[in-house]
């Protein structure tokens, strides 16, 4: 099973877990499996058209899946998916 790294903003939706293992052989299958098991993540990851929200980046190991095959990108069992929403934090300006 591939490992998914959960960013801080999504952790409340997955019971506080930092990493989750999920079944699936492609990025899309794995993320949908995540969304099925943790329904609160669904609207955060996917738009109403089923595509990945544009403010969420997903990396297979260190590469953006959008430059691979997107949700069709093949994922091996030893791979890691990194979910990366934009983050801001620092000075209030």
């Amino acid at each position, binding site marked *: 099973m591939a490992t998914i790294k959960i960013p801080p903003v999504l952790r409340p939706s997955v019971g506080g877990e930092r990493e989750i293992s999920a079944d699936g052989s492609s990025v899309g299958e794995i993320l949908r499996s995540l969304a099925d098991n943790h329904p609160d993540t669904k609207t955060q990851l996917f738009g109403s058209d089923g595509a990945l929200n544009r*403010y969420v*980046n997903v990396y297979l190991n260190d590469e953006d899946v959008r430059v691979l095959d997107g949700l069709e990108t093949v994922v091996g069992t030893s791979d890691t998916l990194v979910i*990366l929403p934009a983050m801001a*934090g620092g*000075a*209030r*300006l």
Partner: protein
Amino acid sequence: MSPSGAEVLRQIKSRIPEVDPADVRDQLGNGAVVIDVREAEEWSTGHIPGAKHVPKSFLESRIEGSAPDRDQHVILYCQSGNRSAWAARTLLDDLGYSNVESMTGGITLWKDRGYGVEQPRTLTAEQRDRYSRHLLLPEVGIEGQQKLLDAKVLLLGAGGLGSPTALYLAAAGVGTLGIVDDDTVDLSNLQRQVIHNSNRVGVPKVDSAEETITALNPDVQVNKYPVRLGPSNIMDILPGYDIVVDGLDNFPTRYLLNDASVRLQIPVVSAAILGFEGQLSVFKPYDGPCYRCLFPTPPPPELAPSCGANGVLGVLPGTMGLLQATEVIKLILGEGDPAIGRLLMYDALAATVSEVKIRRDPACPICSRHPEQIADEEMGVFPDYEAFCAGAH
């Protein structure tokens, strides 16, 4: 009986290659590394243009900083051509260099021929002492320290990230630090904003930061901007700075900064923190991706918490702010591999650093175009901007 020093020198000169100043002049800029092996006070009186300085007394330990490739063409010179001959022998016999020459007659003959010399800028005695640990590094040295003293860096915020960044950049001798912050020091800031202190609660942060910086290093000029960065002032504040250090906590300003910095072609060293995790990247316009290439649109407000509403481990902005300061200094010196096209992610609880690649987006609405094509009215704008801001406030 051992031969005299003069006899040994004569023997050395008979077997090492020597080169006439006229040939050296012809080869300047042709790939040969010209190295002045005199002492610092001699170097400061003037040197061959483009030469590097490696005093003979530090030859073995520092030569690789100036001539890392042992097969490259190295020309050594001194005042009259003797010390450079000894040094050439050391490089050839002991250090394995294959293509080393000593310039005959040294810089004395060079000047007699009427060839030009470059007058290095010098540091004061106090500066030599203050920055002595920098001067010992081949990657910094006097030349690098001068670059730091000449550099102008703009810090957006004197808060959690800006505090450690400002302190270390000031200590390093970055000559001009601009600070944009319209806030005053609050007791709850002091858990992480180490440039302020308990006596300054209620004082404007720009004033408090200036006081600390000036006490730490009087070489640093502090430019204070006690304002909120926004569309009405960003194009007045940014021009003239070499690098911007960003720790902004809200997306509208983050996009505005991106667009202005691309238009002005100023690199931005960016960091963000949340809880126990931090991110860092360097956005250098046209050399790498911009922030919009990474995140074309911001998340909805409920997915974009800022530190005000969420806790932050006090040391975390220290760690991330110092990573920013390090990247700033690398950019000023032109050393190392800056985090351009890479996003570093530091997880304090796991004690891990990982990174992902960021690609330039050929369709990026901002950095796929020429800077002069980016108009005022489109800077900082993104889809749903109004809705986003309405939701955020």
